[in-house]
Protein backbone atom coordinates (compact mmCIF):
# COMPACT_ATOMS: atom_id res chain seq x y z
CA UNK A 1 0.00 0.00 0.00
CA UNK A 2 2.80 2.34 1.00
CA UNK A 3 4.74 1.66 -2.18
CA UNK A 4 1.57 2.18 -4.21
CA UNK A 5 1.12 5.60 -2.60
CA UNK A 6 4.77 6.47 -3.16
CA UNK A 7 4.82 5.32 -6.79
CA UNK A 8 1.59 7.00 -7.85
CA UNK A 9 1.83 10.44 -6.29
CA UNK A 10 0.76 12.40 -9.39
CA UNK A 11 -2.27 10.16 -9.90
CA UNK A 12 -3.31 10.25 -6.25
CA UNK A 13 -2.86 14.01 -5.98
CA UNK A 14 -4.85 14.39 -9.24
CA UNK A 15 -7.81 12.54 -7.75
CA UNK A 16 -7.51 14.54 -4.53
CA UNK A 17 -8.11 17.83 -6.37
CA UNK A 18 -11.86 17.25 -6.91
CA UNK A 19 -12.17 16.05 -3.30
CA UNK A 20 -10.70 19.32 -2.00
CA UNK A 21 -12.84 21.19 -4.54
CA UNK A 22 -15.94 19.56 -3.01
CA UNK A 23 -14.69 19.86 0.54
CA UNK A 24 -14.35 23.65 0.12
CA UNK A 25 -12.66 24.36 3.49
CA UNK A 26 -14.01 27.72 4.57
CA UNK A 27 -11.12 28.44 6.93
CA UNK A 28 -8.81 28.56 3.89
CA UNK A 29 -10.91 31.12 2.05
CA UNK A 30 -11.96 34.74 2.04
CA UNK A 31 -15.64 35.77 1.80
CA UNK A 32 -16.51 32.13 1.15
CA UNK A 33 -14.22 32.07 -1.89
CA UNK A 34 -11.50 29.46 -2.30
CA UNK A 35 -8.20 29.40 -4.16
CA UNK A 36 -8.47 27.81 -7.58
CA UNK A 37 -7.36 24.31 -6.55
CA UNK A 38 -6.79 22.65 -9.96
CA UNK A 39 -3.99 25.11 -10.79
CA UNK A 40 -1.88 23.89 -7.87
CA UNK A 41 -1.70 20.50 -9.56
CA UNK A 42 -1.69 21.64 -13.18
CA UNK A 43 1.25 24.05 -12.78
CA UNK A 44 3.90 21.55 -11.58
CA UNK A 45 2.56 18.81 -13.85
CA UNK A 46 2.79 20.96 -16.98
CA UNK A 47 6.18 22.38 -15.98
CA UNK A 48 7.62 18.89 -15.81
CA UNK A 49 5.78 17.10 -18.61
CA UNK A 50 5.33 19.96 -21.11
CA UNK A 51 2.49 21.75 -22.90
CA UNK A 52 0.89 18.76 -24.59
CA UNK A 53 0.54 16.86 -21.32
CA UNK A 54 -0.62 20.10 -19.69
CA UNK A 55 -3.36 20.43 -22.29
CA UNK A 56 -4.55 16.87 -21.72
CA UNK A 57 -4.42 17.24 -17.93
CA UNK A 58 -6.31 20.54 -18.21
CA UNK A 59 -9.00 18.85 -20.28
CA UNK A 60 -9.35 15.97 -17.81
CA UNK A 61 -9.43 18.30 -14.81
CA UNK A 62 -12.01 20.49 -16.54
CA UNK A 63 -14.23 17.51 -17.33
CA UNK A 64 -14.14 16.20 -13.79
CA UNK A 65 -14.66 19.60 -12.14
CA UNK A 66 -17.50 20.49 -14.51
CA UNK A 67 -19.14 17.25 -13.50
CA UNK A 68 -19.05 18.28 -9.85
CA UNK A 69 -20.64 21.69 -10.38
CA UNK A 70 -24.24 22.23 -11.36
CA UNK A 71 -23.60 24.74 -14.13
CA UNK A 72 -24.96 23.35 -17.35
CA UNK A 73 -24.22 26.49 -19.33
CA UNK A 74 -20.65 27.26 -18.23
CA UNK A 75 -17.42 25.27 -18.33
CA UNK A 76 -13.96 25.47 -16.77
CA UNK A 77 -12.30 23.53 -19.60
CA UNK A 78 -11.06 26.45 -21.81
CA UNK A 79 -9.28 28.17 -18.92
CA UNK A 80 -7.63 24.99 -17.69
CA UNK A 81 -6.54 23.95 -21.20
CA UNK A 82 -4.98 27.36 -21.87
CA UNK A 83 -3.24 27.31 -18.49
CA UNK A 84 -1.98 23.77 -19.14
CA UNK A 85 -0.43 24.85 -22.45
CA UNK A 86 1.07 28.02 -20.98
CA UNK A 87 2.44 26.35 -17.84
CA UNK A 88 4.17 23.80 -20.08
CA UNK A 89 6.24 26.58 -21.63
CA UNK A 90 7.34 28.04 -18.30
CA UNK A 91 10.90 27.17 -17.35
CA UNK A 92 11.96 26.24 -13.83
CA UNK A 93 14.05 28.72 -11.92
CA UNK A 94 17.18 27.54 -10.10
CA UNK A 95 16.92 30.25 -7.47
CA UNK A 96 14.92 29.01 -4.46
CA UNK A 97 13.21 32.31 -3.65
CA UNK A 98 12.64 33.41 -7.24
CA UNK A 99 11.16 29.99 -7.97
CA UNK A 100 8.65 30.27 -5.15
CA UNK A 101 7.73 33.82 -6.09
CA UNK A 102 7.16 32.73 -9.67
CA UNK A 103 4.74 29.96 -8.62
CA UNK A 104 2.69 32.60 -6.85
CA UNK A 105 2.77 34.98 -9.81
CA UNK A 106 2.04 32.34 -12.43
CA UNK A 107 -0.70 30.86 -10.26
CA UNK A 108 -2.28 34.30 -9.86
CA UNK A 109 -2.21 35.02 -13.61
CA UNK A 110 -3.54 31.53 -14.37
CA UNK A 111 -6.33 31.96 -11.84
CA UNK A 112 -7.18 35.36 -13.33
CA UNK A 113 -7.30 33.85 -16.82
CA UNK A 114 -9.57 30.99 -15.73
CA UNK A 115 -11.78 33.35 -13.75
CA UNK A 116 -12.02 35.78 -16.64
CA UNK A 117 -12.98 33.06 -19.13
CA UNK A 118 -15.61 31.75 -16.74
CA UNK A 119 -16.94 35.24 -16.11
CA UNK A 120 -17.18 35.92 -19.85
CA UNK A 121 -19.38 32.86 -20.26
CA UNK A 122 -21.68 34.06 -17.46
CA UNK A 123 -21.65 37.58 -18.88
CA UNK A 124 -22.66 36.42 -22.37
CA UNK A 125 -25.34 34.13 -20.91
CA UNK A 126 -26.73 36.97 -18.80
CA UNK A 127 -26.48 39.44 -21.68
CA UNK A 128 -28.70 37.13 -23.70
CA UNK A 129 -31.10 36.93 -20.75
CA UNK A 130 -31.12 40.70 -20.11
CA UNK A 131 -29.46 40.41 -16.72
CA UNK A 132 -26.52 42.75 -16.08
CA UNK A 133 -26.13 42.50 -12.36
CA UNK A 134 -23.51 39.78 -11.97
CA UNK A 135 -20.51 42.01 -12.66
CA UNK A 136 -19.79 43.11 -9.09
CA UNK A 137 -19.96 39.64 -7.47
CA UNK A 138 -17.91 38.24 -10.36
CA UNK A 139 -15.14 40.79 -9.88
CA UNK A 140 -15.14 39.98 -6.16
CA UNK A 141 -14.81 36.25 -6.89
CA UNK A 142 -11.99 36.76 -9.42
CA UNK A 143 -9.96 39.07 -7.15
CA UNK A 144 -10.32 36.88 -4.05
CA UNK A 145 -9.48 33.77 -6.06
CA UNK A 146 -6.40 35.38 -7.60
CA UNK A 147 -5.19 36.57 -4.20
CA UNK A 148 -5.66 33.19 -2.51
CA UNK A 149 -4.14 31.25 -5.40
CA UNK A 150 -1.09 33.52 -5.34
CA UNK A 151 -0.67 32.99 -1.60
CA UNK A 152 -0.98 29.21 -1.57
CA UNK A 153 0.69 28.42 -4.92
CA UNK A 154 4.29 28.56 -3.64
CA UNK A 155 3.44 26.10 -0.87
CA UNK A 156 1.51 23.49 -2.87
CA UNK A 157 3.29 23.86 -6.21
CA UNK A 158 6.81 23.52 -4.83
CA UNK A 159 5.84 20.38 -2.91
CA UNK A 160 4.05 18.82 -5.88
CA UNK A 161 6.84 19.80 -8.28
CA UNK A 162 9.39 18.08 -6.09
CA UNK A 163 7.24 15.00 -5.77
CA UNK A 164 6.49 14.79 -9.52
CA UNK A 165 10.20 15.26 -10.29
CA UNK A 166 11.15 12.35 -8.04
CA UNK A 167 8.48 10.23 -9.68
CA UNK A 168 9.67 11.15 -13.17
CA UNK A 169 13.28 10.36 -12.31
CA UNK A 170 12.23 6.99 -10.95
CA UNK A 171 10.28 6.17 -14.10
CA UNK A 172 13.25 7.20 -16.29
CA UNK A 173 15.53 4.97 -14.24
CA UNK A 174 13.14 2.05 -14.75
CA UNK A 175 13.19 2.51 -18.56
CA UNK A 176 16.97 2.37 -18.70
Amino acid at each position, binding site marked *: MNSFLKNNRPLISFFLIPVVFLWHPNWLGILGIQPYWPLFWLLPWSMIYGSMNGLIAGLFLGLILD*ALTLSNNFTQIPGLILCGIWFGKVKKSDNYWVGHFRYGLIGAIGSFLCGLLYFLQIFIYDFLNNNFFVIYPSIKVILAQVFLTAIFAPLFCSYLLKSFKIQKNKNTMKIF
Partner: protein
Amino acid sequence: MLVIRRIFFSRWRQKKRKGILLVILLFFVFVRLSKGSLYKDFYYFISKPFWPGQFQKEILINSADQELLVKLNQLEKDNKRFREILSLQKVADSETISAAVISRKNGSWWRQIILNKGSKDGVEVGSAVVGPGGLLGRVSSTSFLTSSVMLLTSPESQVGVWIDRLQVNGLMVGLGDDYPKLIFYTKDVDIKIGDFVLSSPASTLLPPNIPVGIVQNINKDNSQKYANVLLLGRPQAIDWVQILKVKI
Protein backbone atom coordinates in the same frame (compact mmCIF):
# COMPACT_ATOMS: atom_id res chain seq x y z
CA MET B 1 17.43 -7.29 -36.10
CA LEU B 2 17.71 -5.66 -32.74
CA VAL B 3 16.96 -2.23 -34.26
CA ILE B 4 13.87 -3.55 -36.07
CA ARG B 5 12.63 -5.10 -32.86
CA ARG B 6 13.21 -1.85 -30.99
CA ILE B 7 11.27 0.15 -33.61
CA PHE B 8 8.47 -2.42 -33.50
CA PHE B 9 8.24 -2.20 -29.71
CA SER B 10 8.39 1.59 -29.69
CA ARG B 11 5.50 1.74 -32.22
CA TRP B 12 3.54 -0.80 -30.21
CA ARG B 13 4.15 1.24 -27.06
CA GLN B 14 3.00 4.42 -28.83
CA LYS B 15 -0.20 2.73 -30.00
CA LYS B 16 -0.78 1.34 -26.52
CA ARG B 17 -0.29 4.81 -25.05
CA LYS B 18 -2.86 6.32 -27.41
CA GLY B 19 -5.28 3.55 -26.51
CA ILE B 20 -4.84 4.20 -22.80
CA LEU B 21 -5.30 7.93 -23.37
CA LEU B 22 -8.53 7.25 -25.27
CA VAL B 23 -9.81 5.00 -22.48
CA ILE B 24 -9.00 7.68 -19.89
CA LEU B 25 -10.71 10.34 -22.02
CA LEU B 26 -13.80 8.14 -22.34
CA PHE B 27 -13.76 7.61 -18.58
CA PHE B 28 -13.70 11.35 -17.91
CA VAL B 29 -16.42 11.97 -20.48
CA PHE B 30 -18.47 9.33 -18.66
CA VAL B 31 -17.79 11.12 -15.35
CA ARG B 32 -18.87 14.40 -16.95
CA LEU B 33 -22.06 12.97 -18.43
CA SER B 34 -22.99 11.17 -15.21
CA LYS B 35 -22.63 14.50 -13.39
CA GLY B 36 -19.77 13.17 -11.28
CA SER B 37 -22.02 10.67 -9.49
CA LEU B 38 -19.12 8.25 -8.88
CA TYR B 39 -17.06 11.04 -7.40
CA LYS B 40 -19.85 12.33 -5.21
CA ASP B 41 -20.52 8.83 -3.85
CA PHE B 42 -16.81 8.45 -3.14
CA TYR B 43 -16.84 11.83 -1.38
CA TYR B 44 -19.86 10.62 0.64
CA PHE B 45 -17.73 7.89 2.20
CA ILE B 46 -14.60 9.89 2.88
CA SER B 47 -16.48 12.87 4.33
CA LYS B 48 -18.66 10.67 6.61
CA PRO B 49 -16.55 11.18 9.77
CA PHE B 50 -16.81 14.95 9.34
CA TRP B 51 -20.56 15.32 8.89
CA PRO B 52 -22.12 18.09 10.97
CA GLY B 53 -23.43 17.41 14.45
CA GLN B 54 -26.94 17.96 15.69
CA PHE B 55 -26.22 21.37 17.19
CA GLN B 56 -27.25 24.55 15.40
CA LYS B 57 -26.13 28.02 16.23
CA GLU B 58 -28.03 31.01 17.45
CA ILE B 59 -28.29 32.41 13.94
CA LEU B 60 -30.31 29.39 12.91
CA ILE B 61 -32.67 29.75 15.87
CA ASN B 62 -33.34 33.33 14.82
CA SER B 63 -33.96 32.22 11.27
CA ALA B 64 -36.34 29.51 12.51
CA ASP B 65 -38.25 32.12 14.55
CA GLN B 66 -38.59 34.31 11.49
CA GLU B 67 -39.77 31.35 9.47
CA LEU B 68 -42.45 30.53 12.05
CA LEU B 69 -43.58 34.14 12.06
CA VAL B 70 -43.96 34.19 8.30
CA LYS B 71 -45.74 30.85 8.32
CA LEU B 72 -48.12 31.97 11.04
CA ASN B 73 -48.88 35.12 9.11
CA GLN B 74 -49.63 33.08 6.04
CA LEU B 75 -51.78 30.56 7.87
CA GLU B 76 -53.91 33.31 9.33
CA LYS B 77 -54.49 34.75 5.90
CA ASP B 78 -55.25 31.34 4.47
CA ASN B 79 -57.71 30.72 7.26
CA LYS B 80 -59.51 33.97 6.50
CA ARG B 81 -59.71 33.11 2.86
CA PHE B 82 -61.03 29.65 3.69
CA ARG B 83 -63.84 31.15 5.61
CA GLU B 84 -64.61 33.57 2.83
CA ILE B 85 -64.55 31.38 -0.21
CA LEU B 86 -64.53 27.85 1.24
CA SER B 87 -62.25 26.64 -1.52
CA LEU B 88 -58.59 27.43 -1.13
CA GLN B 89 -56.05 26.26 -3.67
CA LYS B 90 -55.14 22.74 -2.67
CA VAL B 91 -51.63 22.34 -1.29
CA ALA B 92 -50.36 18.90 -2.13
CA ASP B 93 -49.34 16.47 0.59
CA SER B 94 -45.64 16.61 1.14
CA GLU B 95 -43.22 14.14 2.62
CA THR B 96 -39.90 15.36 3.98
CA ILE B 97 -36.47 13.77 4.05
CA SER B 98 -33.90 15.12 6.52
CA ALA B 99 -30.38 15.42 5.15
CA ALA B 100 -27.02 16.76 6.28
CA VAL B 101 -24.96 19.16 4.20
CA ILE B 102 -21.69 17.40 3.32
CA SER B 103 -20.30 19.92 0.86
CA ARG B 104 -21.00 23.60 0.59
CA LYS B 105 -20.07 26.14 -2.07
CA ASN B 106 -21.71 29.43 -1.36
CA GLY B 107 -19.15 32.08 -2.12
CA SER B 108 -17.61 31.43 -5.50
CA TRP B 109 -18.96 30.92 -9.03
CA TRP B 110 -20.78 27.81 -7.95
CA ARG B 111 -23.51 28.19 -5.40
CA GLN B 112 -24.50 24.72 -4.46
CA ILE B 113 -24.66 22.27 -1.57
CA ILE B 114 -24.35 18.51 -1.58
CA LEU B 115 -26.55 16.45 0.75
CA ASN B 116 -25.99 13.00 2.17
CA LYS B 117 -29.24 11.61 0.78
CA GLY B 118 -29.56 10.45 -2.79
CA SER B 119 -31.74 8.40 -5.10
CA LYS B 120 -31.40 5.47 -2.66
CA ASP B 121 -33.44 7.49 -0.15
CA GLY B 122 -35.99 8.57 -2.73
CA VAL B 123 -34.67 12.06 -3.48
CA GLU B 124 -35.82 13.24 -6.90
CA VAL B 125 -34.48 15.93 -9.20
CA GLY B 126 -36.57 19.08 -8.83
CA SER B 127 -37.48 18.57 -5.15
CA ALA B 128 -37.50 21.74 -3.06
CA VAL B 129 -34.95 21.99 -0.24
CA VAL B 130 -35.74 24.02 2.86
CA GLY B 131 -33.66 24.82 5.92
CA PRO B 132 -34.25 26.75 9.12
CA GLY B 133 -35.62 30.01 7.77
CA GLY B 134 -37.06 28.96 4.48
CA LEU B 135 -36.38 27.83 0.95
CA LEU B 136 -32.74 27.19 -0.01
CA GLY B 137 -33.00 25.83 -3.54
CA ARG B 138 -33.91 22.86 -5.66
CA VAL B 139 -32.30 19.47 -6.19
CA SER B 140 -30.49 19.61 -9.52
CA SER B 141 -28.93 16.19 -9.69
CA THR B 142 -28.80 13.04 -7.65
CA SER B 143 -26.36 10.18 -7.35
CA PHE B 144 -27.05 6.92 -5.55
CA LEU B 145 -25.98 8.31 -2.16
CA THR B 146 -25.94 12.10 -2.58
CA SER B 147 -27.93 14.92 -4.11
CA SER B 148 -26.75 18.32 -5.34
CA VAL B 149 -28.82 21.39 -4.65
CA MET B 150 -28.66 24.56 -6.72
CA LEU B 151 -29.05 27.45 -4.29
CA LEU B 152 -31.38 30.38 -4.93
CA THR B 153 -28.31 32.62 -5.13
CA SER B 154 -26.82 30.72 -8.10
CA PRO B 155 -26.73 32.74 -11.34
CA GLU B 156 -28.62 29.92 -13.03
CA SER B 157 -31.44 29.79 -10.49
CA GLN B 158 -34.86 31.17 -11.45
CA VAL B 159 -37.95 30.51 -9.34
CA GLY B 160 -41.47 31.90 -9.29
CA VAL B 161 -42.34 33.76 -6.08
CA TRP B 162 -44.99 36.15 -4.85
CA ILE B 163 -45.39 38.93 -2.34
CA ASP B 164 -48.05 37.64 0.00
CA ARG B 165 -49.25 41.09 1.10
CA LEU B 166 -50.12 42.11 -2.46
CA GLN B 167 -50.45 38.66 -3.99
CA VAL B 168 -48.32 39.73 -6.92
CA ASN B 169 -46.18 37.21 -8.74
CA GLY B 170 -42.56 37.78 -9.73
CA LEU B 171 -39.49 35.94 -10.86
CA MET B 172 -36.55 35.59 -8.47
CA VAL B 173 -33.20 35.33 -10.27
CA GLY B 174 -29.86 34.49 -8.61
CA LEU B 175 -27.03 36.96 -9.22
CA GLY B 176 -24.09 35.09 -7.77
CA ASP B 177 -24.16 37.13 -4.55
CA ASP B 178 -26.23 36.72 -1.37
CA TYR B 179 -29.16 38.86 -2.56
CA PRO B 180 -31.16 37.47 -5.47
CA LYS B 181 -33.11 39.85 -7.68
CA LEU B 182 -36.90 39.80 -7.72
CA ILE B 183 -38.32 40.96 -11.06
CA PHE B 184 -41.96 41.94 -11.37
CA TYR B 185 -43.92 41.64 -14.55
CA THR B 186 -45.69 44.97 -14.06
CA LYS B 187 -44.16 48.34 -13.27
CA ASP B 188 -46.82 49.68 -10.93
CA VAL B 189 -46.45 47.21 -8.07
CA ASP B 190 -46.68 48.78 -4.64
CA ILE B 191 -43.97 46.73 -2.92
CA LYS B 192 -42.32 47.97 0.24
CA ILE B 193 -39.09 47.20 2.01
CA GLY B 194 -39.81 44.45 4.52
CA ASP B 195 -42.46 42.64 2.45
CA PHE B 196 -42.33 38.87 2.79
CA VAL B 197 -41.52 36.83 -0.28
CA LEU B 198 -42.98 33.33 -0.57
CA SER B 199 -42.93 30.68 -3.25
CA SER B 200 -45.69 31.35 -5.72
CA PRO B 201 -48.84 29.23 -5.91
CA ALA B 202 -48.59 29.74 -9.67
CA SER B 203 -45.15 28.10 -9.80
CA THR B 204 -44.96 24.70 -11.40
CA LEU B 205 -41.56 24.02 -9.85
CA LEU B 206 -42.16 24.62 -6.15
CA PRO B 207 -44.84 23.93 -3.58
CA PRO B 208 -46.75 27.12 -2.74
CA ASN B 209 -46.13 29.48 0.16
CA ILE B 210 -42.73 28.38 1.39
CA PRO B 211 -41.03 31.38 3.05
CA VAL B 212 -38.19 32.65 0.87
CA GLY B 213 -37.05 36.05 2.08
CA ILE B 214 -37.72 39.70 2.81
CA VAL B 215 -37.57 42.59 0.34
CA GLN B 216 -34.40 44.52 1.14
CA ASN B 217 -34.36 47.32 -1.42
CA ILE B 218 -36.41 48.36 -4.40
CA ASN B 219 -35.21 49.67 -7.77
CA LYS B 220 -36.94 50.76 -10.89
CA ASP B 221 -35.85 51.20 -14.49
CA ASN B 222 -37.70 52.13 -17.66
CA SER B 223 -39.23 48.77 -18.34
CA GLN B 224 -39.61 47.00 -15.03
CA LYS B 225 -39.51 47.16 -11.25
CA TYR B 226 -37.22 44.92 -9.28
CA ALA B 227 -36.12 44.31 -5.71
CA ASN B 228 -33.26 42.64 -3.91
CA VAL B 229 -34.26 39.92 -1.49
CA LEU B 230 -32.65 39.03 1.81
CA LEU B 231 -33.02 35.27 2.08
CA LEU B 232 -34.35 33.78 5.30
CA GLY B 233 -32.58 30.45 4.84
CA ARG B 234 -28.83 30.96 5.14
CA PRO B 235 -26.90 28.23 3.37
CA GLN B 236 -23.56 29.36 4.81
CA ALA B 237 -24.68 28.39 8.32
CA ILE B 238 -27.09 25.51 7.79
CA ASP B 239 -25.95 21.97 8.49
CA TRP B 240 -29.26 20.14 8.25
CA VAL B 241 -32.00 20.58 5.67
CA GLN B 242 -35.35 19.08 4.68
CA ILE B 243 -36.02 17.83 1.18
CA LEU B 244 -39.67 18.16 0.25
CA LYS B 245 -40.97 15.34 -1.86
CA VAL B 246 -43.91 17.13 -3.33
CA LYS B 247 -46.37 16.35 -6.05
CA ILE B 248 -47.58 19.67 -7.33
